[in-house]
């Protein structure tokens, strides 16, 4: 468990290249309604020379931003028939692997999710999938650059025991991948040991914390 203070405040921006800035602006600004909030015109002044370029930013809510680089005169690079503007893959690379890297944008409600579904379905980039996962529901499409975009809502709030479960899974994973033969069976066996070691103590501490928090409420509320 990490004891380091956690001071970061979310995504400032994530940046991708584009060869189709007009399509990118249509998709994010005109179809999804994400405002353009910043842009920079620059050239290659550093040790590596590169073409003049525009770096532009869309607001994706919460003050977080999705940014693109457009380089004048730059042609797409090869690499295979699959993939997106950033990375091309050979024919034999499986789709699940290519799709594993994607951006998921949060919405607060089913109503909001369906609103974005309507916007996409009325455009050149309709929703390709709508899926209920364990505790979230998501819609997916690919933007004009081939980047997979997910819009997702929580079906219920995350419970404290899910944080414990995640911590145990990851500790088990780190142990198992350091061993000779990583597998799901090995992970679940290691995780059972960690459950037996730590889960009961976690619940006692959690109950004690919850009691303490409840007890402190009248203190706070006192005028």
């Amino acid at each position, binding site marked *: 468990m990490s004891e380091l203070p956690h001071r970061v405040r979310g995504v400032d921006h994530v940046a991708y290249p584009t060869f189709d800035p007009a399509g990118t602006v249509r998709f994010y600004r005109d179809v999804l309604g994400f405002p353009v909030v910043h842009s920079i015109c620059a050239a290659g002044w550093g040790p590596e020379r590169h073409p003049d370029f525009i770096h532009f930013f869309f607001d994706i809510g919460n003050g977080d931003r999705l940014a693109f680089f457009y380089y004048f005169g730059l042609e797409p690079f090869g690499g295979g028939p699959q993939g997106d503007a950033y990375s091309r893959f050979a024919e034999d690379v499986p789709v699940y692997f290519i799709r594993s890297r994607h951006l998921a944008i949060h919405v607060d409600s089913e109503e909001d999710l369906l609103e974005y579904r309507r916007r996409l379905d009325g455009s050149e980039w309709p929703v390709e999938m709508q899926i209920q996962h364990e*505790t979230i529901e998501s819609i997916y499409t690919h933007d004009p650059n081939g980047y997979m975009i997910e819009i997702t809502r929580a079906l219920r709030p995350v419970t404290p*025991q899910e944080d414990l*479960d995640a911590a145990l899974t990851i500790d088990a994973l780190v142990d198992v991948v350091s061993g000779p033969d990583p597998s799901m069976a090995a992970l*679940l066996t290691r995780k059972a*040991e960690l*459950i037996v070691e730590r*889960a009961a103590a976690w619940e006692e501490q959690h109950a004690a914390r919850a009691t303490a928090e409840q007890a402190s409420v009248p203190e706070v509320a006192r005028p």
Partner: protein
Amino acid sequence: MTTFYVLDVPENVSVATVAGQGPDVTVARVGPYFEISAPGAIVVDRRATGCRHAVWYSCVAGLRGARVTQQDKDALRVEPV
């Protein structure tokens, strides 16, 4: 003994309930987990749980003295190692 663990969150409760209906199956608690044990194999019918696809395939949190021999659209089967 065959033992597997399921995290106690709303989606998973029916897995523990249905598993507990099996012969010789006991359901205990270890912290926020259900500890589901039996002397032999434990079989859980997916339709009886009503679990969605994504919930069903991620419901097993741990295995003690056990291995998963079936986890598909029909059933989860956990057997002694």
